[in-house]
């Protein structure tokens, strides 16, 4: 299975999509739903199959004015890998 790399373009897996608006925005998928914390949502909302992982990390660093980009990269990478295991994200 491919590792998540800078050039990877993560996207929601088939059958996963957003429902609801604003703070109620929920990820819905076969037989389940996930209401995410703000930071998790910020990562996942950028997984549109267009942006590269490097670009997503860059945007997060800017959005959260983060001092430690490497930490953001590691957290986002671990989070997306977990969601891939659940078949919610592909890359």
């Amino acid at each position, binding site marked *: 299975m491919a590792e998540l790399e800078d050039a990877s373009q993560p996207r929601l897996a*088939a*059958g996963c999509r957003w429902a609801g608006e604003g703070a109620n925005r*929920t990820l*819905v*998928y*076969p037989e389940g*739903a996930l209401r995410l914390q703000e930071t998790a949502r910020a990562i996942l909302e950028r997984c549109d199959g267009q942006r590269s992982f490097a670009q997503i990390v860059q945007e997060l660093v800017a959005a959260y004015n983060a001092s430690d980009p490497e930490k953001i990269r590691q957290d986002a990478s671990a989070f997306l890998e977990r969601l891939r295991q659940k*078949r919610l994200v592909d890359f």
Partner: protein
Amino acid sequence: MPETPLALIAEITHRCPLHCVYCSNPLQMASPSSELTTQDWERVFEQSAKLGTLHVHLTGGEPLAREDVTELVKSAHDHGLYTNLITSGIGLSEARLDALVKAGLDHIQLSFQDSREAPANWIAGTRAHALKLELAPLIRRSGVAFTVNMVVHRQNVDHLEEMIALAESLQPERLEIAHTQYYGWAWKNLEQLLPTREQVRESLEKISAAQKRLQGRIRIDAVVPDYYARYPKACMGGWGRRQLLIDPSGTVLPCHAARVIPGLGFENVRQSPLDWIWRESESFQKFRGESWMPEPCRSCDRRTEDFGGCRCQAFMIAGDAASTDPVCSLAPTRGLVEEKLSQINAAVISGKKTPQGPPLEQENLWVYRPQPK
């Protein structure tokens, strides 16, 4: 205030070309002439979405037996609901599948009765297996999210690995391996379906090995048989807490089997608004929360996890819907379940009830569910 019902199970018809011996439909099925109209269902989806429902599971019977299923998918989708079609596949064509996907279908769950054709058709009481194998690639190519559902019991669980291999070859995102739950027709056929302790133990090992092997490729969700468990399942995520079911005639139920509970009346969407039924009606309040609970549930730490288990099972096995689920090892009535398990395990081990596959001669082994009249 009750919580939001996250999922609506829409049993849009009890008609079905299959006659599965484990069917969860009630023994008294809704007649075709009593079925809700397209407009009725559209109103239900609107009301349900307003209540906060996220998922709608279109099921039956066979939901494709309704000619308006594409309209129903479109309506549910337009109201923002996540649409899941739970189907045997019978009645699906490439054109109909295209129309369903265009209407906004999010997910299809296709069921199999076995990996082998003869036993599969035997369980379903219909020659359906070969057709399902033809449909699976069409579903895969359509791009819709795809779950393969394998229903297991004593008659097929010994070739579970072969069933998993079949599912793998169909390339779904998700595989559900569901040990039969004993309600409806499955309850009627329990003697022939309940697996042995050894079969259950082996099946759980095989499932766990497959989960590891297929991790990241196919998500495997397993439904385990609660008769052999220490604690009951959190049936429906708690009574009137997470899910509701509407039967073909519009009756609103907290679960598939609730009609078996005597003295409990249910409301109908033809007469009452769904939010009132969910929030206020007697049937939904009856076992909601903890005030109905007897001991040992009332003071049990697990009461917020399993909600006392299943009310229908408590009635069916122990004769009292307000008692602790008898499958719980702490239930005073656990002995009734043990008795059933000992009888069946002893009979199977002594060879009286060996899993045997389709009989050569017609035998009166079990009861097939008929068509609703």
